[in-house]
C-alpha cells in the first residue's frame, strides 16, 4: 500500500498537469503522458502505450477516457479512477467558473484572440502526438504499411476510422504482423 500511494500521487500530479495544458482537447496531451509514463517513470513500454491508445480509439466515448485505460494499466482500478478524476477536475472546474460568467465571456474580443492564438499550438501538439505514436507503433515494414494504409483511408475517404482499425485488427489476427 505504501508503494501504491506514491504511484497514486504521481498519477494525480501528471494528469492534473495534463488537464490544464490540454489545449484543443485530450489528444494534445499524449506527448506529455508518453514522456511521463514511458520515459520518466518507466511504468510501461512504448509498444504498450501505443496499443492502449489504439484500444481507447476503437472504443466509444470522448478521447479523454484513454487516461482511464492508461491509469488502469499502471495501477489497476484505483489508478483508472484517479487518472480520470485528476484529468477532469481542474479543467472542469475552470469550465464551471466560465459557465458562471458566460454572458460576459461569450462575445469578448479577448476570447476570440486567445482562441485564434491557440489554434497553431493545437496543430503542433496533434502533429507531435502523431509522430510519437507512429514511432511507438513501428515494428517493421508490416506495421509501417498498415500505418500508411490507415492514413490513406482516413485522409482521402470519408469512411469511419473504425473501418481502418477493424481491418488492421483482422490482418493482425491472421498473422500478417
Amino acid at each position, binding site marked *: 500500500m505504501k508503494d501504491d500511494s506514491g504511484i497514486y500521487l504521481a498519477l494525480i500530479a501528471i494528469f492534473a498537469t495534463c488537464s490544464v495544458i490540454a489545449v484543443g482537447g485530450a489528444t494534445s496531451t499524449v506527448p506529455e503522458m508518453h514522456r511521463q509514463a514511458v520515459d520518466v517513470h518507466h511504468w510501461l513500454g512504448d509498444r504498450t502505450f501505443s496499443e492502449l491508445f489504439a484500444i481507447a480509439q*476503437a472504443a466509444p466515448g470522448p478521447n479523454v477516457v484513454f487516461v482511464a485505460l492508461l491509469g488502469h494499466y499502471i495501477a489497476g482500478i484505483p489508478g483508472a479512477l484517479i487518472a480520470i478524476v485528476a484529468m477532469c477536475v481542474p479543467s472542469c472546474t475552470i469550465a464551471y467558473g466560465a459557465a458562471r460568467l458566460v454572458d460576459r465571456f461569450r462575445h469578448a474580443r479577448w476570447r476570440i484572440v486567445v482562441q485564434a492564438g491557440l489554434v497553431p499550438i493545437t496543430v503542433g501538439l496533434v502533429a507531435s502526438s502523431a509522430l510519437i505514436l507512429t514511432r511507438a507503433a513501428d515494428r517493421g515494414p508490416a506495421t509501417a504499411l498498415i500505418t500508411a494504409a490507415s492514413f490513406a483511408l482516413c485522409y482521402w475517404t470519408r469512411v469511419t476510422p473504425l473501418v481502418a482499425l477493424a481491418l488492421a485488427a483482422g490482418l493482425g489476427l491472421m498473422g500478417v504482423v
Partner: protein
Amino acid sequence: MTKKEQSALPPAGRPAPAPTPAQLFVAFATIAGCGFGGVLAWSRRIIVQQRGWLSPEEFNQQLALCQVLPGGNILNFAVMYGCRCAGLAGSLAAVLGLLGPPVALMIVAGMLYRGYGDVPALHGAFASLAAAAAGLLLATAAQMIVASVKDRLRIEHVVAALTFLAVGVLRWPQLSAIAVIAPLGIGLAWWRRR
C-alpha cells in the same frame, strides 16, 4: 448569468423546458455510447436535432467557448451546458453521463488487455491496431495542417512548427513548452487583429 438560468427547475412557460439533471445524464450517456470516432457529431445530433434543447447557433456559440478552455471540448460542453440548465447538479449529471459508461468500459478493456494481451495470437492484432491508430492520428494532423495553410503560409505557422519541434521532437516537458509558446501565439493573434 441570469437568475433564470441558475434556477434548478425549468422556468414555466418557456417553449423548450431546460432538461433536468436526470435527462442530462441520459443524453450525455447516449452521446458517449454512440460516439465512435468523435463525440462532437453525436452531441450535435442529440442535443440540437433529437432533443431540440439548443438551436444550431446556440450550440456553436457554446462550443466556441469550450474550445478556448483547457480540456476536452465535449467535456467542457457538458460542464457548461449542464450548469446552464441545472447549476452544479446539471454539470455533475452531464459529466457523469459522458464519462461513466466509457470509463467502465475502459476498465473492462484494461482487465482484458492485462489478462490476454500476452497471448501470442493476439500480439499481431494489437500491434496492427496500434499501427492503424497511428495512421488515423497522422491523418487528423495532416487535415489540421492543410486546413491551416489553405490560403498561404503565415507567421502563425512558425508557432505550430515551434510547438512540434519543442514537444514532438525535442520532448520538452509540455507545461514549460506551452508556457513559452502560448503567450507568443496569443500575442501574434492580438497583433494581427489590432
